[in-house]
Every structure is written in structure tokens, then in C-alpha cells.
């Protein structure tokens, strides 16, 4: 992607993915790196930071002779996600205001 995704956006996307369902490291990494065009190495620090901030918790599930660590969104994570969603709407509105192309009618008005 031409426009880079910053740390706050990464947090928001991880929380949004976990809001849908609990998931494990490899899966969420694949989902988000393909969706956002970021490198595979960028996901772990985000997950660790969110975990330390109390936005997500982990639990291990035994699967084919080993443990798979699942991530689950916490109540605090949901609050943070709600804040990010509001911020994103506001951000999008402001950028759209500046970026949106000139309307056809107003162009004609200017010409006449």
C-alpha cells in the first residue's frame, strides 16, 4: 500500500479482528499482513503491547501434541476499539473533506 499503516491503526485492526473471534498468532498475522500490506515481523510487538496494556488476554489450547496460544479481546480492549472506531470516522471525514474531487455541477457553475 502507498499509504502506510501506523501503530495506532495496527492496534485498532488487531482489536477489530479479535472482536470477531478468538484467534492464534499465526492466523492473525496472516490475516492482517495480507490485509494491510505490513511485514510478518510487525505483528508480534503489537500483540505483546496490547496484552501488556490489558486490551487482550491469552490462553493455551493443546493441539496435535503442542500448545497453541489464543488471543482474546478484554473489556478494556473493547473500550479502546470503540475509541479507535470513533477516531477513525473523524479522521476519514477530515481527510475526505480535503481529498474529495470537485463535484460536476459546481465545476459547471464555475465555467458559466
Amino acid at each position, binding site marked *: 500500500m502507498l499509504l502506510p499503516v501506523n501503530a495506532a491503526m495496527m492496534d485498532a485492526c488487531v482489536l477489530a479482528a479479535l472482536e470477531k473471534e478468538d484467534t*492464534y*498468532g*499465526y*492466523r492473525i*498475522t496472516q490475516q492482517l499482513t495480507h490485509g494491510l500490506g505490513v*511485514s*510478518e*515481523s*510487525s505483528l*508480534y*510487538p503489537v*500483540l*505483546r*503491547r496490547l496484552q*501488556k496494556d490489558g486490551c487482550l488476554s491469552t490462553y493455551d489450547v493443546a493441539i496435535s501434541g*503442542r500448545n*497453541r*496460544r489464543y488471543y482474546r479481546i478484554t473489556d478494556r480492549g473493547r473500550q479502546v476499539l470503540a475509541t479507535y472506531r470513533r477516531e477513525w470516522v473523524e479522521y476519514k471525514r477530515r481527510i475526505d473533506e480535503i481529498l474529495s474531487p470537485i463535484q460536476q455541477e459546481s465545476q459547471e457553475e464555475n465555467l458559466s
Partner: protein
Amino acid sequence: MTRSEFLAALRRRLSHLPPEEQDAALKYYEEYFDEAESEEEAARQLGSPDAIADRILADYGAGRAHAAEKKPGRSPWFYVAIVSLCILFSPVILGVGGAALAAALTIACLFLVAVVGVIGGFLCAALALLAAFVILLVACVPAFASFPPAGTLLLGASLACAGMGALLGVFTGYLCYWTGLLFRAMFTCGRRKKGAKAK
């Protein structure tokens, strides 16, 4: 790069972090290798373990700096807890405070009584000697008339009383002066301490 090479390099680069940080990171990347279709595919996707370690270290440092910034401010709950504890233990606090105040007042009173007693005692003794001097002086006049040696004795005793009385009087005066100095020193010392605290 194989799985074991990758993980060993990562562990080496993270060795300065606390054990739980190392374990969490290693666990995540071990799992990544386990889940990936192949070892080569995972290693190719993840790239250099050094770069990964650098990101983890940078993020850990930033998190720590952030936590350190937050630390000095105490949460309002701390103050709420302190106030609640004060209210809860007010009988104890008042009791102990009252006892301390009573003890301090008692000591101050005893000190005052002692000072007044000693000074008063000396003053009384001086006055008594002065009175004895006057009585003996008056008594020696008829004694001289009837039996001169007795008169002389009484006069001598009277003069001795006068001398001792004068000495005691002077001493009592000094005692008052010293006590005054002591009280003034205590008072100004206390005021200076209060002034220093106010600054």
C-alpha cells in the same frame, strides 16, 4: 535459515530482556514455525531474526519509558484510601494523639512546677533569713540590756542571717534570670524550626 537457527539467533539477541519477555517472544515465533506450511516458508516470511529482535527491543524500551513517565502520578484512589483509613482509624488516631498531647502537657507542667518550686524555695529561704535577721536584731536590744554576751551572740546570729539571706537573694535573682534565658532560648528555637518548615 532453519527453524532452530532462527530461534537461537532470536534468543541470543533478546538475552538482555527479562525472562518472561524472552519466553513470550520465543513462544510466538516457535508457534509461527509450527503453523506455517514449511520451515522455509516461515523463515522467508519472517525475514531476519536480528530485525525482529530489534523491533521487540525497541518496543520494550518504549513501553518501559512510557511506564516510567506514568509512574510519578498517584491514582486518586490512593488518596481516597488514605482518607478512608484516617476516618476508619480516627478513634485510634485521636486516642494516640490525645495521649501524646496529655503526656506533653504533663511534662511541661511538671517542669514548670519544678522551676517555680525551686525558685520559690530559694526565695522563701531568703525571705525567712531576712525575717530572722530583723527578729534577732530587735531581740538583741533587750538582751544587751540584761546580759551583754547574749546580746552579742544574738547580734552576730542576726548579721549572719542577713549575710546568708542576701547571698540567697542574689542567687535567686540569678536563678530567675537563667530560667528566663532558658525559656527564651526554647521559644526562639521553636519559632526558628517552624520558620524553617514554612520555607
